[in-house]
């Protein structure tokens, strides 16, 4: 890990990071504001009127009764998947493939730092920013909930929801990063970085849309952001976290190894 490169990466993605935080803040503030303990039953009734598949496809499937499950189902079913996904796709590509495509990677590996050091630094930069995004949003979420509905948020489960979502993005960003390390052209790296997360999202939506398609949930990591299980099943968060951390590490490790061994035309 190279500190200079790490700080340069953070600086280079400052704008993207701020914008993503603002977008997420906008959605989460609206969603939390919309929570009304009185009418949450009314919302539940309204949901019943929608075609079942439609509601499930957009993640509005759990009938939200508490503030925590309200946030969990309205935000972490779609918004907190789509925007971190966009962030991940852009950042993963710019960490490696963009430098290779543009040729600036030549400067990095012409310094007395091994390729492994350089690429691990890029990986850690990406993971740090992603973690930062979720930490900031979790803190903001808690603050907003306390301001608007003091005492209603179950902080523990809320943090767990964020943790699992973050760790799922460990895997999703790993796939983007792998693409970034494999391909010479930004365009190819981007298409790998985009197609997997989007396919995962579509699979999640389809799996909820009809019972016949529910088997599709086994093919997308977003299924693991299961608000019910996180909130109600004892060791779910622990074991899911362990599995996701191992999976992410393996993906990142292979990305770094592949980059270290490959031939670069810089």
């Amino acid at each position: 890990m190279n500190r200079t490169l790490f700080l340069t990466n953070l600086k280079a993605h400052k704008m993207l990071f701020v914008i993503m935080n603002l977008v997420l803040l906008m959605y989460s503030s609206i969603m939390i504001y919309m929570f009304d303990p009185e009418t949450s039953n009314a919302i539940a009734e309204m949901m019943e009127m929608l075609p079942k598949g439609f509601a499930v496809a957009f993640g509005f499937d759990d009938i939200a009764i508490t503030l925590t499950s309200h946030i969990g189902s309205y935000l972490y079913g779609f918004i907190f998947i789509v925007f971190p996904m966009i962030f991940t796709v852009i950042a993963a590509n710019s960490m490696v493939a963009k430098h290779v495509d543009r040729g600036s990677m030549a400067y990095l590996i012409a310094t007395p730092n091994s390729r492994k050091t350089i690429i691990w630094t890029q990986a850690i930069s990406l993971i740090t920013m992603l973690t930062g995004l979720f930490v900031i949003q979790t803190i903001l979420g808690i603050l907003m909930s306390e301001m608007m509905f003091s005492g209603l948020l179950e902080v523990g489960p809320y943090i767990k929801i964020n943790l699992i979502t973050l760790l799922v993005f460990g895997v999703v960003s790993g796939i983007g990063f792998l693409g970034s390390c494999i391909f010479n052209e930004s365009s190819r790296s981007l298409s790998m970085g985009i197609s997997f997360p989007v396919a995962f999202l579509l699979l999640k939506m389809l799996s909820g849309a009809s019972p016949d398609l529910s088997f599709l949930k086994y093919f997308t990591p977003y299924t693991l952001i299961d608000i019910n299980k996180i909130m109600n099943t004892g060791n779910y968060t622990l074991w899911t976290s362990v599995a996701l951390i191992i999976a992410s590490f393996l993906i990142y490790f292979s990305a770094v190894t592949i980059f270290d061994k490959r031939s670069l035309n810089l």
Partner: protein
Amino acid sequence: MIKVDDLTQIYKSGKGIFNVSFEIKKGEVFGFLGPNGAGKTTTIRNIMGFSNSTGGKVTIDGHDARVETAILQERIGYLPGEIAFFENMTGMEFLNFMGKMRRLKNLEKRDELINRFELDPKGKIKKMSKGMKQKVGIVAAFMHDPDIIILDEPTSGLDPFMQNVFMDLIDEEKAKGKTIMMSSHIFEEVQRSCDRAGIIREGHLVAIEDIHSLKAMNKKRFKVMPMNDESKSKILSSDYKTESREDGSIFIDQNGSLNEFFRLMASCEIAEFDVVTQSLEDIFMKYYGEEKTHE
């Protein structure tokens, strides 16, 4: 010091470099000449340890260039052929960044180079002209005072004055005993500062010559425009190899004594007189035969 041993790298297109072998001695300035697309950059990529060769290898002081890259980079200064920096950095930010990546403490040489090349490092690199970017690259390649300097087409983008400043820098570094390799497609550049030159053509190293024999190859060609027929026939009937053009001008290949040549010129009425700069292509055409020069 730098040993390129039977190096082969074949790209998917079938192009590449084939069984290239040469050695650069310590303290030597080695020119690497060849037209665009001949394989200069491919060879340099292997010396820098960027590429995995299809066959053969490069060693620098006995260290494998691809395996022990990080250790070797302590001692190498490199100027890439294509300028690509970090977007949105200013020249100074980039040089600071590179300095820190190299754990460089002494910034004297960097600042001296900035002055010497009249580089204004305050602007964003993205907005800089090609020549200014090239200067940033040159400063980055030399600022840590490396023993080994690898330069891929170093003078491209520089104006003639800056090319001279650069050539003076090369002479100084050479005097300090640095080992320098520079690729170029311009003959004069290599002729001026190199001890030896390798000539690469379509991926094959066609010759390694010391610079004196290369100079001998680079015969001068002049273009003259005689004012009258008398002068014209005088030139055409001389011993020199000549070529008449439709516009009335004559191309003369001069070799041997310059005195004799100018005596002939002085005896003629001439409207125009020009030195024809010979491209590397022309030199190849003359000295390595037709079959090697077709594209």
